[in-house]
């Protein structure tokens, strides 16, 4: 993997001043993706699934080809297991509102982990409150890894849903999604996986961990914003009610009744985000060309370098395990609020996230209000990590030892 050559593919990275270390928030886009969207609007902009003229059919084919591409990317059985949505948040809300709300009853239990992003927490909280079910949290161990022994006790025959993130957006830990999936299914629960951080960073194979539903976003994996995926097995999707009715999702309509198209098209009412789908297809092509195994290894090693360097500094607290599992490194500088640190970095054109990262219960569980988070992707390099490390030292001098 030649990072310097890869960086040339990303127009925004040509700004040499900038160290973009906020990839868990959103990834940058390679020229290939930007060009694909441009090309679509310039030459291919026809609506899908409704027009009889040839160019519109070509656009429909391009759109449906991406569905297959997404299915292949996660090793799904068939393209029909893929529904296009606006993003992870919409996908998870669909599962909660249009599946769980009907299938979770009084006295049932929903199990999540304390590492969840709000998107994989609040929809379940609402279902639990509305239906009188109980929401339970799998805790983490001191090193930030999921407490498997606790999970074994928490997931029981009362559990109707287990919803788990595959990669924590704060700790960068990869949760044991295969083991938890087995526990969920042994107890007859549906298994929902939030793959928002996983899809861009690790190879995903649904044949290995068998989620009933899985959600991810295009914009974190080089694709455009406003496009995401809900994967569901046919068995699971058949039990989900239709979130929206309207154009394109129907077979026949009379003045009194209607029949719908088969799965997945019945879940995509209205004109979809065609440009988004085309862009996502190009993003997957780019990722496949580099290889998800390569990406995982590179990001983990770079994060290990960054975390090791930061840990050498006794004023720095690095959260999560010593052996890094993905490109995400959350940390704090003792005695300094994350927002002041982030402003200091901002003025040096080093862009990191500061705050609770939409995972407030987890950040509180770490005993803090806010953390800094550097999230690395395969186009980041050691030079950018070094800039961050030396800025951390400078800011300690500035804030903690007078200036």
């Amino acid at each position: 993997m030649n990072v310097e050559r890869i960086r040339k593919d990303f127009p925004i990275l040509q700004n040499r001043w900038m160290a973009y270390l906020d990839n868990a928030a959103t990834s940058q886009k390679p020229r290939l993706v930007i060009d694909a969207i441009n090309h679509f609007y310039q030459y291919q902009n026809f609506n899908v699934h409704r027009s009889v003229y040839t160019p519109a059919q070509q656009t429909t084919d391009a759109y449906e080809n991406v569905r297959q591409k997404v299915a292949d990317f996660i090793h799904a059985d068939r393209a029909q297991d893929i529904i296009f949505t606006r993003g992870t948040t919409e996908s998870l809300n669909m599962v909660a509102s249009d599946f769980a709300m009907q299938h979770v009853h009084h006295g049932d239990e929903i199990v999540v982990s304390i590492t969840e992003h709000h998107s994989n927490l609040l929809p379940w909280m609402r279902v639990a409150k509305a239906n009188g079910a109980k929401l339970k949290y799998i805790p983490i161990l001191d090193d930030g890894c999921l407490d498997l022994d606790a999970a074994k006790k928490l997931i029981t025959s009362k559990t109707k849903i287990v919803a788990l993130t595959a990669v924590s957006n704060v700790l960068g830990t990869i949760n044991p999604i295969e083991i938890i999936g087995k526990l969920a299914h042994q107890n007859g629960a549906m298994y929902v996986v939030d793959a928002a951080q996983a899809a861009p960073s690790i190879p995903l194979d649904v044949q290995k961990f068998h989620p009933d539903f899985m959600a991810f976003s295009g914009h974190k994996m080089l694709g455009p914003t406003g496009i995401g995926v809900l994967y569901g097995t046919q068995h699971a999707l058949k039990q989900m009610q239709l979130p929206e009715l309207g154009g394109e999702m129907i077979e026949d309509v009379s003045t009194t009744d209607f029949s719908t198209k088969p799965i997945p098209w019945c879940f995509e009412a209205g004109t979809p985000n065609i440009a988004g789908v085309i862009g996502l297809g190009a993003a997957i092509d780019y990722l496949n060309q580099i290889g998800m195994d390569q990406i995982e290894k590179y990001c983990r090693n770079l994060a290990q370098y960054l975390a090791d360097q930061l840990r050498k500094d006794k004023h720095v607290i690095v959260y999560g395990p010593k052996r890094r599992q993905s490109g995400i490194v959350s940390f704090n500088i003792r005695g300094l609020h994350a927002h002041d640190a982030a402003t200091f970095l901002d003025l040096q054109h080093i862009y990191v996230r500061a705050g609770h990262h939409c995972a407030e219960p987890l950040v509180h569980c770490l005993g803090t209000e806010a953390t800094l988070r550097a999230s690395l992707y395969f186009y980041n390099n050691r030079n950018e990590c070094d800039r961050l490390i030396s800025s951390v030292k400078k800011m300690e001098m500035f804030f903690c030892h007078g200036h």
Partner: protein
Amino acid sequence: MDIRSLYQDIILDNASHPQFQKRLSGTRIQKVLVNNPTCGDRLVINGIYQHHKLEAIYFHINGCIISKASTNMMAHLVIHHSIKQIDDLVLSFSKLMTNEDFANKDKLGDALSLSSVAKLPVRIKCAMLPWKGIYQLLHREVHHEN
């Protein structure tokens, strides 16, 4: 922007040496909690407003340097003032944050040192937090009396 123009000594001093840390006693204490959900900043302000002025103030803050400094400066400026005067200070400070002109700039005292925050829109809410808090505290009091 230079880091020193944002984090001047006077700001660092105000943040690290907060005054008004003595809890208030009595029956007429008004309390308010304000927070910045995206930062996790939380500020509690207690005040006693009687005889047409803010006679006492206490605060407790978890937050960044900007919000801490702004809170200490605010407390210094508002104590012993009437609602009308405090409202004028709140309005003046918010104009400082939006780069608008206002009369008698000197009345903001040390808080003028926060003017650089106006150049960093994402941090304005940190500096504004205590001003939002004192405004809510006093206007809730007035509302009660009505």
